[in-house]
């Protein structure tokens, strides 16, 4: 609690009047991410070719467009770009919602055990040699089960500080599910299954195909729509419980709705892309420094910025080295120093 004091007054002392420049920057990041992701790679595509491909799709002249370029854009990079945008936006929006709900800018979507639950589901799916879609489904169910358990424990144990109880329960249940992941890895076939599990647990979008987009798109669109629709109430939800109720908000049902929506998008993302940490922590902060803390603007801004952020990271992941670098590793390399900087800057204002 001690860090509450000044953390959010730091980067945006004048969080005031117009959020337009902030939104413009977020959109610019997204567009830059899109261009970067579609053109750069083992098979470079020039900007001119990209425009040509897009125009051809829209019914424009085909000219001497090479089929290879078209297939790179539509079959190889297109689905991956879509997935990166959706996962980035989903994790960022879920992180923003969780930070508001738990009145703590240092929490992230993993906090209620959603990620570890989904991870356990996925490794079990791989262990049982299920198909890709079935693995996604099991991962998704795992995430929901973990959050369900956390929530039930939180509701049945009496506490003066239900939020803190929920967060601590999330940590505990998360570590139990983590132990389950360890057990399944220990039991797995070390030649076929274990590499697949490891690869998946580190997070990657490299295997994304058009078929993967549908199970991702549905939950992400539903969850994000719910969170965006509720954004006007999110400010009040970030107040202490009794204050929010005195302002006329039925906090109980609304909290369940927000947690369910945020868990839905997190689980769907984890089910598609594996564990990608830190996005839900870093992006809300960046978005807050762009448009201020008001959730009405913050949630849409976080969605846009999150999409662009993960696009950039994913493009780096596949172009930086000869082999692809797992996404979770890159986001951690960026996220950890960011977190330490955050803690340090909080300590300064605290005293």
């Amino acid at each position, binding site marked *: 609690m001690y860090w509450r004091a000044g953390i959010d007054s730091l980067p945006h002392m004048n969080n005031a009047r117009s959020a337009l420049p902030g939104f413009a920057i977020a959109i610019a990041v997204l567009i830059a991410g899109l261009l970067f992701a579609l053109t750069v790679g083992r098979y470079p595509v020039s900007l001119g070719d990209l425009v040509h491909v897009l125009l051809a799709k829209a019914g424009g002249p085909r000219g001497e467009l090479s089929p290879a370029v078209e297939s790179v854009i539509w079959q190889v990079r297109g689905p991956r770009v879509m997935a990166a945008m959706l996962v980035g936006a989903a994790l960022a929006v879920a992180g923003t919602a969780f930070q508001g709900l738990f009145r703590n800018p240092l929490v992230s979507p993993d906090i209620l055990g959603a990620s570890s639950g989904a991870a356990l589901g996925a490794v079990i799916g791989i262990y049982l040699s299920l198909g890709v879609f079935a693995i996604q489904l099991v991962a998704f169910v795992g995430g929901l089960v973990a959050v369900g358990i956390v929530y039930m424990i939180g509701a049945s144990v009496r506490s003066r500080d239900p939020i803190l109880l929920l967060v601590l329960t999330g940590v505990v249940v998360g570590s139990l599910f983590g132990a389950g992941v360890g057990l399944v890895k220990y039991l797995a076939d070390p030649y076929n299954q274990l590499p697949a599990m490891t690869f998946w647990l580190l997070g990657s979008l490299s295997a994304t195909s058009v078929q993967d987009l549908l199970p991702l798109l549905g939950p992400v669109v539903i969850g994000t729509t719910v969170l965006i629709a*509720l954004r006007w109430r999110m400010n009040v939800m970030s107040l202490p419980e*009794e204050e929010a109720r005195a302002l006329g*908000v039925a906090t109980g049902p609304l909290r369940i709705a927000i947690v369910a929506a945020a868990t839905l998008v997190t689980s769907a993302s984890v089910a598609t892309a594996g564990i990608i940490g830190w996005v839900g922590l870093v992006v809300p902060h960046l978005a807050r420094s762009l448009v201020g803390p008001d959730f009405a603007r913050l949630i849409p801004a976080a969605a846009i910025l999150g999409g662009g952020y993960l696009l950039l990271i994913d493009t780096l992941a596949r172009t930086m080295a000869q082999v692809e670098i797992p996404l979770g590793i890159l986001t951690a390399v960026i996220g950890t120093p960011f977190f330490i900087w955050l803690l340090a800057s909080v300590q300064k204002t605290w005293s």
Partner: protein
Amino acid sequence: MILEGRQLTIGYQDRVVGTGLDVQLAKGEVLALLGPNGGGKTTLLKTLLGLLPPKAGEVRLGGAALSASSIRERARLIAYVPQTHVATFAFTVEAVVLMGRTAHGDLFSRPTAKDRDIVAGMLERLGIAPLAQRPYTMISGGERQLVLLARALAQEPQFIVLDEPTANLDFGNQGKVMREIRALAASGLGVLFTTHDPNHALRAADRAYLLRDGQRIAEGPVRQILTRERLQVLYEAPVQTITDASGTAFVPG
């Protein structure tokens, strides 16, 4: 319209804080709730606000049971000014006061132009309009108390309940909050506040309600109720009186 508690037993799930409490607050009057720490003041406030269900008895508002109305209907009738606290997020003062309009919209509605006008009016009324775009985390404690008061006024309630509105304020700001409380009553609102300072009750309240160990010790017009003897019983501590031509003040002995 009257806000009243009848034969209330107040407390939490696992313990009873007070029993047999009758409270009445009419519109246009100010009631001060006094008593030692742990005597049940805050618990009684929360019960009257409907935030905490009474363990026995009933809270009634305008003749109907408070528990029968929805949380939103309640917020349009009774506003709550909590003790100032450090905020998590650096919302602007305007955004904080705008939250007072929550109960006037539905779950998905955005603030309307009318909401913003009301907010601007309340900021003006309390003399804090220049702070509108400042982060709530970067203003003084006294200003924060006024912002929370403005938020309560933006609810356009019939009653306002304040929890220790003068705690943590400097001398000048204490006086300002006292004057505002009188002004609220003059504009027709029913006001209930808790305080640790009997002088504040003398100054701002019409009636006083003395609460110790969850029991009502006395209740009535401030000048009759607040005597040296009663305060000594209430706080179990010696109290001295200072009197001059302009009135009486109490100091702990």
